[in-house]
């Protein structure tokens, strides 16, 4: 990984610019870490367990681990194992970057505890607005997305206030015309593929291997794509108002707690209850038919597409 030059604080913390290895240019630049201990020595032998524990500060990691644990004890070991694996990997990744950020952030330039937060939220929320989308990703340069702009960027207009003039189109000649029809064609192809996927996978009975393989494969592929980098390079959105976030959080938590309460009211975790149905129990009649499974799968695909496009 190439080490990029350090930015000033105004440009946002550059914890993600640190190399992935334990020792790197960050060690060379500073003579000593906090307390006079050389940072290279501090980072020389990070315990993987401590790294994972450091990643548990991320709420989403804790949520994933809870989901994985509940799935495991509810008779869905494959679900549980995969989610636990993803949660631990994410915790390790977040903890690793957090630990790398500590020596880089420590020093006389530290301005406030908020800025010293080694979590990754700060670059996306504060830094990238000033430093641009390239500063936003976790050690994955966004230059790839910039070098190969997505169809949405190229087709929607290259600059605000400068609509694609016919003269420009004429100068551009073929490539621009190709781009104009390529995007709808690509969208139509993706749509057709999605419908085909929903119909074919929906034809398999639930919890069968033919249904498991395509669902698990697609899920893994999407997570891998999301892990690497976002599909579109765009400035990070501003943090929404805290009150609004709290209200959405309240609805989300209420839904989770209601589902959990229903689950715990069952005779046991693997046996559904009519008196206290979970969402899974309520959707069983719909998912017992081919059409119902296909519609739900289409909705799942649409939601995944929506998330990937964010």
């Amino acid at each position, binding site marked *: 990984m190439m080490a990029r030059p350090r930015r000033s604080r105004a440009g946002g913390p550059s914890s993600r610019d640190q190399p992935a290895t334990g020792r790197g240019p960050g060690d060379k630049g500073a003579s000593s870490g906090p307390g006079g201990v050389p940072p290279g020595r501090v980072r020389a032998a990070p315990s993987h367990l401590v790294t994972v524990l450091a990643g548990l500060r991320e709420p989403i990691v804790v949520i994933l681990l809870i989901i994985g644990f509940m799935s495991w004890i509810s008779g869905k070991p494959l679900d549980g194992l995969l989610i636990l694996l993803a949660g631990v990997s994410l915790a390790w990744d977040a903890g690793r970057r957090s630990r790398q950020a500590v020596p880089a952030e420590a020093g006389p330039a530290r301005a406030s505890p908020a800025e010293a937060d080694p979590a990754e939220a700060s670059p996306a929320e504060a830094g990238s607005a000033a430093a641009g989308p390239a500063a936003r990703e976790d050690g994955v340069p966004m230059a790839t997305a910039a070098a190969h702009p997505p169809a949405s960027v190229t087709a929607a207009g290259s600059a605000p206030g400068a609509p694609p003039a016919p003269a420009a189109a004429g100068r551009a000649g073929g490539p621009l015309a190709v781009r104009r029809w390529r995007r709808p064609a690509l969208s139509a192809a993706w749509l057709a593929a999605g419908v085909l996927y929903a119909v074919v996978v929906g034809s398999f009975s639930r919890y069968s291997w033919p249904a498991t393989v395509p*669902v698990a494969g697609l899920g893994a592929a999407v997570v891998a794509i999301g892990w690497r980098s976002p599909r579109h390079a765009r400035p990070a959105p501003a943090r929404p108002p805290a009150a609004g976030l709290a209200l959405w959080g309240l609805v989300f938590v209420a839904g989770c707690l209601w589902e959990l309460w229903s689950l715990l009211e069952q005779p046991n975790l693997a046996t559904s209850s009519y008196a206290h149905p979970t969402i899974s129990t309520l959707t069983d009649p719909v998912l017992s038919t081919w059409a119902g499974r296909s519609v739900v799968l289409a909705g799942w695909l649409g939601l995944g597409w929506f998330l990937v496009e964010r």
Partner: protein
Amino acid sequence: MNSHDATVLGYLVILLAGIVLQLLATRTRAPIPPLGKVIAWAMGTRTRRVGILVAWAWVGLHFFAR
């Protein structure tokens, strides 16, 4: 109203609360962000983005996979 009805009603109330929040966000000047903006903000860092995508994958696994 039996336990089944009360449980289903609870889900509906929560769903309705979400719909009301979305309507308030899009139809009024209340300081409530639309759900899309909340998700876009949440997807702004790798940890949250991957976490949300894993949760999405889990939904598919939970309903269809072994």
